Structure formats: C-alpha cells, structure tokens
C-alpha cells in the first residue's frame, strides 16, 4: 500500500464524513449560491453601460417662453410630467410617482437670454441610483448648452441663425446617452457585462475558502480522540494525512465550482436575472480553479492545524475568510475602493484568485494575466502546507 493509496483512501473517508455532515454542506454549497443569487439581482443595473434616465417631474417657476419650450421639448423627447409646485414634486417623489425632479426657477435666463445652469435645482428620491442621477444631470447640462448655442447663434446674426435654425438640437450636440459605451470585456468577447458574470467568480472563490469549516471539524476531532495518533501506529505518514485531505477537499471545491456554474447558468436566468456565459477559455479556467482550490485547502489546513478546538477554528477561519473577502473585493468591488485600498487588495490570496478568475470570466485572458496570479496562489498553498506539516506530525504522535 503506497502513501498515495493511503492518501486516496483517506480522501474517500473524508467524503463519507462530509456527506454525513449536512450543516457543513449547507455552508459550502447553499451559502455561496445564495450570495450569487442575491448579488446578481442586487447589482443587476450597476454594470449596464447605458443607464436609463429616472422618471422626472418638472416644476417651471420661470414664466418665460424659452423655459416652457425647453421643458416641452425635454418631456417630448425623454418623457416626464409637469407639476404645479415644489410641494407637489415632493409629494410625487415620496409616492414614487417620479424618481427625480427638475425645478426651473424664475429668472432662469440671464440678461442676454442664456440659461443659468447653476439656478436649476435637481431633486432625487432616496432610491435613485447614483449612475442614473449623474446621467440626468449630464443630459440637462447638454440640453441647456443647446439652448445657449441657439441664443448665441441668434445674437450672431441672420446667417448663423438660419443655419442653426434648420438643425434640430440633437443633431447639433448629441446627448450623452446616445454615445456608445463598451467595456473591454464586451469588445473582446462580444457579450455584455453583467452582474452574474461578476458575481459567480467572486462568490465561488468565497465559498471555496470556506472549506476551513469541515477540514477543521475533522482534523480537530481526529486530534482530540486520538485517531490521528492511531493512524500513525498504522504506519500512516503526515504526508498521507495531508495529501488525503488535500485530495478530498480539492475535489469538494471542484464540486462547488460545478454547482455554482449551474446556478449562474440556469437558476439565475430562470429567476429573471442575466445568464452566465460558459464559453470560457477552458485551459486558463482549469489553471485558476486548481490554484484557487490549492490555496483554499492549504489555508484551511493551516488554520485547522494551529487551532485548539472547533469553535476556535470556526471563528478564526470564518472571520479570516470574511476579512480576506472584503479585502479582495468580493463584497465591495475593487473599482469602488480608494486607490490605497486597491493596492492592498491586490496582495491577498482571494484578491489573486479574483483577478485571475475575473480575467477568465470577463475577457480573453493571456498567460501574463493568469500565470502570475496562479503562481502566487500555488506558492501560498505550499507555504500553508509547509507550516501545517509540523503540527500535524506532532499531533499524530501525541494526543
């Protein structure tokens, strides 16, 4: 019986123990699946390049013809309602009849008849997305610029006025919403960036690192009741014990991975979300999955080897995973972090995994994107195994 066969039989035993631990399986499978579902829907519109304008109510306090015309043009083009007063606008925002309000105050135009942009007030409901608010502001600024150009052209003389008068406002200056925006991912893959495409790799990594719970459970039990010591009397080396656990829990990680892909591909769209595209670069995907899994199991073994009891391991392992996840940009996407945090974020194991996995899921990666991240993960896994070796060897000899 070779050490490899002993490790293989230990791996089979680990799987039997796992299958009889429904709580552990819930943490490993349902928790990341629930996160994928929730985050895919929660972030659904934040990654869409063309943000829709919020429904807008208009309060026109300026009695001039230009203000009335400008408002009618806007409502005709983008939709919206005219409201009689600020109080009515406030009520409409509260009742969620509109999401935004534009107040055009009296004396909106200056002495030359040009609009004063800083006089216009924008009100928003508490629920409007920042991106939608920004788009409304940009569109209004463009629109006022168009009014200003027409006024300037009229003042410049009959020739300019005739030229400009024959063109519509949108031909003069297209609104920002009509500009075509494309992410690099869309350019390279020809598909749209979606929340599910981002959420699946992120929460998959998070779930994979949660193997610390079952690993710690088994190892601490084995240490406590002397089973690890007994295995040593059967001629089982620490290499076989560590190898068996590595084999079992890496296989578990692959099962998680398969399950999460199914959730993203079928469950999320079935519930009305976006579909996960699965035509990934398979080779790079396998490299990243293997490296991530090795790092996750290595860290779990390290925590299990150095903790005294299961409560300690669960608290330390769970806490460490949440902190590492936050640091890596699993919970708060990295682009939303300040620059200093982004640098720190690039130096965490989950961060390396996320960078590599997102390169796979969100684009057409090459070796320069994947190999450094996968190498860091494998080096991290080896370091963890090296540090786990001594306590496991010692624990195998003394219960």
């Amino acid at each position, binding site marked *: 019986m070779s050490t490899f066969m002993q490790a293989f039989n230990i791996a089979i035993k680990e799987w039997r123990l796992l299958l009889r631990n429904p709580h552990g399986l819930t943490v490993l499978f349902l928790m990341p699946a629930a996160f994928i579902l929730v985050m895919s829907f929660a972030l659904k519109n934040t990654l869409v390049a063309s943000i829709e304008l919020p429904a807008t109510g208009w309060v026109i306090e300026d009695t001039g013809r230009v203000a009335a015309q400008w408002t009618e043009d806007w409502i005709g083009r983008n939709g919206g309602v005219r409201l009689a007063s600020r109080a009515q606008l406030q009520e409409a925002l509260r009742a969620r009849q509109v999401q935004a309000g534009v107040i055009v105050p009296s004396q909106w135009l200056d002495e030359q008849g040009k609009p004063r942009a800083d006089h216009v007030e924008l009100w928003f409901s508490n629920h409007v997305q920042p991106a939608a608010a920004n788009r409304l502001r940009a569109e209004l600024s463009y629109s006022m610029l168009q009014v200003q150009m027409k006024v300037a052209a009229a003042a410049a003389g009959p020739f300019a006025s005739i030229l400009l008068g024959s063109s519509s406002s949108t031909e003069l200056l297209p609104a920002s919403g009509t500009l075509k925006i494309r992410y690099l991912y869309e350019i390279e893959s020809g598909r749209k960036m979606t929340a599910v495409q981002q959420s699946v790799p992120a929460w998959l990594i998070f779930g994979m690192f949660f193997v610390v719970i079952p690993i710690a459970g088994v190892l601490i039990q084995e240490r406590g009741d*002397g089973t690890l010591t*007994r295995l040593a009397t*059967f001629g089982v080396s620490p290499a076989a014990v560590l190898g068996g656990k590595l084999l079992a829990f890496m296989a578990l990680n692959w099962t998680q991975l398969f399950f999460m892909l199914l959730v993203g591909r079928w469950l999320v769209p079935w519930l009305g979300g976006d579909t996960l595209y699965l035509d990934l670069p398979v080779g790079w995907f396998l490299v990243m999955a293997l490296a991530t899994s090795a790092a996750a199991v290595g860290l779990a073994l390290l925590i299990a080897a150095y903790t005294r009891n299961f409560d300690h391991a669960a608290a330390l392992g769970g806490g460490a995973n949440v902190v590492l996840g936050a640091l890596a940009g699993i919970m708060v996407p990295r682009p939303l972090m300040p620059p200093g945090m982004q640098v720190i974020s690039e130096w965490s194991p989950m961060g390396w995994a996320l960078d590599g996995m997102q390169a796979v899921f969100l684009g057409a990666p090459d070796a320069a994107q994947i190999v450094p991240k996968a190498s860091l993960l494998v080096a991290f896994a080896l370091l963890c195994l090296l540090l786990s070796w001594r306590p496991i060897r010692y624990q195998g000899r*003394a219960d």
Partner: protein
Amino acid sequence: MLSAENISYRYPKQSGFALEGVDLALSAGQTLGLLGPNGSGKSTLIKILIGLRSPQAGSVRLLGDKPPVIAWVPQDYAFYPQLTCRENLQFFASMLRVSAAERALRVRRVEQSCMLQEFADRLARRCSGGERRRVNMAIALLQQPDILLLDEPTAGVDPQARAFLLDQVRQLAQCGTAIVYATHYMEEVSALCHQILLLDHGKVLASGDLQALLRGSEATGAFENLEALFMHHTKRSLRDSTRT
C-alpha cells in the same frame, strides 16, 4: 519479544521526568499488567513502546527473526463516530500495506472475533459504550499484532462487555500474543496477568511476578490483595495528573 532498558523520557518544556530508568521485558503469550495512579507515566510508556515517542535515554528492542507487529488500543474511542462500525474497520484496514483480499478477510475475522456483526452497519456514534470498546479493540486486531498494548480498554463499560473483553485478551495471550495491559482495575490485572509493573511519578515501584510480589517481604508482610500492594507502594495521597 520486546525489551525496554533504562527508559527515560521528559516532555518538552517540563522540568521533571515523565519516565526515569524504566526496564521491561515481554515474551510471547505473556500478559503484563501496567499499574499506576493518574500521571504515573503508563500512557507515556505505552507510546514509547509503540514508537510514537522516542526516549531521551535507554532503548526499546524488538526481538525475533522478523520485527513483531505492535498494535495499540487507546483509552479513547479513536475512530470516526460518523462512520458505521464496518466502515471504520474497512477504513483502518485500507491503511494497512496488505492486499485488498487480505484486508477484506481481516475485517471479516475481527467482526467475528469481537462479535460486531449485529451492529456492524450502525453508525459508531449510535453504539453503546461496550460496543464502542469492542470496535476500538477490533481496529487494533486488524493489524494481527504480535504485541498488543491496551490502555484502559474497559473504562466505562458494563460487566458483560468487560467480561467479553477480558476473555478476548486471554484468548489472544493463549494464541501467543504478548500483551501490556494498563488499567486502574486491580481485579482485571489479578485475573489476567502473571507479571506486573507498578509505576509512580515515572519510576518503577515494583515489578515482577504477581504472586511473588503479593507475598511481600519481611518488612511488609504478605499483602491481602493487589489493591493493598498498590496502596502500600503509591500511598494514599490524591493525584492530580496533567500528563500521562
């Protein structure tokens, strides 16, 4: 079959010796009773004999044409409560460096000898204390040992299970297995062992033929029973062990 000479052992970061100058000899078919209060060094000696710890002084020699197989029955239930009894046996058998057919044969044999068939498919955590003790013993017997080291194998079991385990130890000894039997139950040692080794604070207080020791010396006179001998040597003060 096994001889230990002048064994001394000190745990890391501890000032005193856990064992000091211990000698022991064991031949085929012999049952040695290992006695001592908590913290006397019994478990440490067993771990040294099985090779889990290396003594700082002295040596353990295994005698014979080929090295004898040593198995250990630990004090705790050292197996997986979430597996069935049979799955536990199959798992530990799969750690042995023997063929698959031989493994299956050994599992069947120990199931029969320890009478596990009735509850072999029950999860170990659902078994009674006595059943678990038998599983604990059966796992060690998978190794087909020449030397069997038992560390309090009957702790917490009912009289029926105890009688069964003692019978099994007797049978093993009759078949030539050398046995070291560590326990706090004097009547078990009296029933099983011809030789004893009495330890306290890591030192040998008495060793040799049980009947000869019970006869005592001129100074002590004869001892009524093994418990009287034990109390004479170890005194009545309570022991609070931190490590054995």
